[in-house]
């Protein structure tokens, strides 16, 4: 999937994945896509909840071994 920005929050635990995702999105324009890579298992439900609460679109969630890859559209 194409993306405009990548955020690596591997080895960081709650609340950092969501907090840093919010910060990364602030600097992006509407319609741009942010790729987030995390290892925190809690981030799977957190990202979904974050997208729903803030109106950004969670395009996809993938699990690659111990990593979770999210694509969020602002």
């Amino acid at each position, binding site marked *: 999937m194409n993306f405009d920005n990548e955020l690596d929050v591997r*080895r960081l635990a709650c*609340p950092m994945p969501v907090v840093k995702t919010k910060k990364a999105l602030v600097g992006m324009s509407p319609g741009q896509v942010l790729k987030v890579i995390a290892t925190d298992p809690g981030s799977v439900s957190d990202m979904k909840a*974050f997208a729903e*609460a*803030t109106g950004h679109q969670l395009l996809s969630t993938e699990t690659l071994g111990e990593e979770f890859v999210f694509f969020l559209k602002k």
Partner: protein
Amino acid sequence: MGAAETVGGLDASIAKHIEEVVARKVEETLAQLKPKGPPSMTIIATKGTLDWAYPPFILASTGVALGWDVSVFFTFYGLNLLRRDLSTLKVSPLGNPGMPMKMPFGPDWFRHINWNIPNAVQSIVPGFESVATALMKQTIKNKGVADVADLRAVCIEGGVNLIACQMTVDLFGFSHADFIPEVSEYCGATKFLPMAQKADVSLFI
């Protein structure tokens, strides 16, 4: 002209019209009463140990990440969390049976052991609390959880409103100079409670 249908003594068509008008008026009034703006949260933080520093700061930083308005009122031992130097925060396992006591080093099988040290031993051994604090900090670091100072900085950056209880400052003989300058005000419960009343979520930690 045949007999008109009545509903509760009123002509059926009038009754239906009244119902529609009332429904619309109620909705309009409710919309006016509902506060506009993002969801809001107030937290009262009363504990000042390393472990209890996490819930208020994590909840507050997550709240602002979700776009909420968040205010935290630090009172009693919660004032510890507003100190300039957070390295003094300690944690004690004494009388704290809920705390897992696992070593944050060594092979996996070793790390899984829960060392249930009796309270009597904990209270006699000097420096036990310092050791427990150091082990807890190592555990936190191992798992990629932010340290308290970083979490507090995230809260400040995110716009969390930090409020300190003036009564507690007076009670324990503290001074404003002991605390971080980002505290937005020193006030009391009378000022804070109305804020909590207006908030969507109010927590006591």
